[in-house]
């Protein structure tokens, strides 16, 4: 049986893969942002596991910073979504290709 931090690293890997597939497979911006949140959570879990594995506390501090950056990302991203939905009244990224030329 692997120790607790090793299990945490493995689950962080699995969660990150799930979030990555969510970003790549879904075509709705809301679901893509929710999947990005899952990926950030997986990174946090890896930080905490590494902090517990090396008997240091730096990972917990960095996890706090990642959380603050995630809050900024959610705020600005949701503001963009609201502005975009007012403009185009859709959230499918296939219909929002104006940046792709």
């Amino acid at each position, binding site marked *: *049986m*692997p*120790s*607790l931090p*090793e*299990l*945490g*690293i*493995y*689950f962080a*890997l699995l*969660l990150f*893969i*799930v*979030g990555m*597939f*969510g970003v*790549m*497979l879904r*075509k*709705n911006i*809301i*679901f893509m*942002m*929710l*999947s990005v*949140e*899952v990926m950030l*959570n997986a990174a*946090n879990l890896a930080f*905490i596991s*590494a902090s*517990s*594995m*090396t*008997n*240091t*506390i*730096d*990972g*917990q*501090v960095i996890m*706090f*910073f990642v*959380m*603050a*950056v*995630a*809050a*900024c*990302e*959610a*705020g*600005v991203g*949701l*503001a963009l*979504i*609201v502005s975009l939905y007012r403009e185009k009244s859709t*959230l*499918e990224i296939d219909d929002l290709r104006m940046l792709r030329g």
Partner: protein
Amino acid sequence: MMTQISFLIMGILTVFLSIMMITRKWPVTASMILIIVMMLIAGMFGMLGAHFSAVAQIIVYAGAIMVVFVFVIMLLNLPPEELRYGRITMFELIYIVLGFLIALFLGTKVGQGYLLSVLNSQTLMNSRPPYYPDSMNENVKNVSALMFTDYLWAFELISFLILVAIVGAIVIAKKAKVNDAKSS
């Protein structure tokens, strides 16, 4: 052994619920499932000895960020989407395979020894007395002491980033309204 089994159950439940999350049809359902996922991850943090991080996870993620998500979803009043999955292109497949290989390498004993040697080679880590997560009662004190000494500049930069994000969110969300008023 008991803690490992419960940690295993929590992790499997987390991965299963996040798979459920990315396959839902309604955004609100997905948000509710994601709140449960974040609570489970907070439990895993607590079992790993990071009590302050567990509480911050529940307060910030499940309490603040997800409320903003649900608020925006309800504000937009979205219709349910029919599930239209995209195709995975060749480049994305290459990224996935490379990521799996790196993760498998880091999961082996050799990779973990490599990671630990990298971590231990930092003189910053060695200059500090080691922190043992078994002595639980001083977690908040240790985290805050480290945050306001070694990571003080990062902390200040993060506060400035949050200020910029607040102003940016207001400006971005307001701009469409100004344009509407001009055009009408």
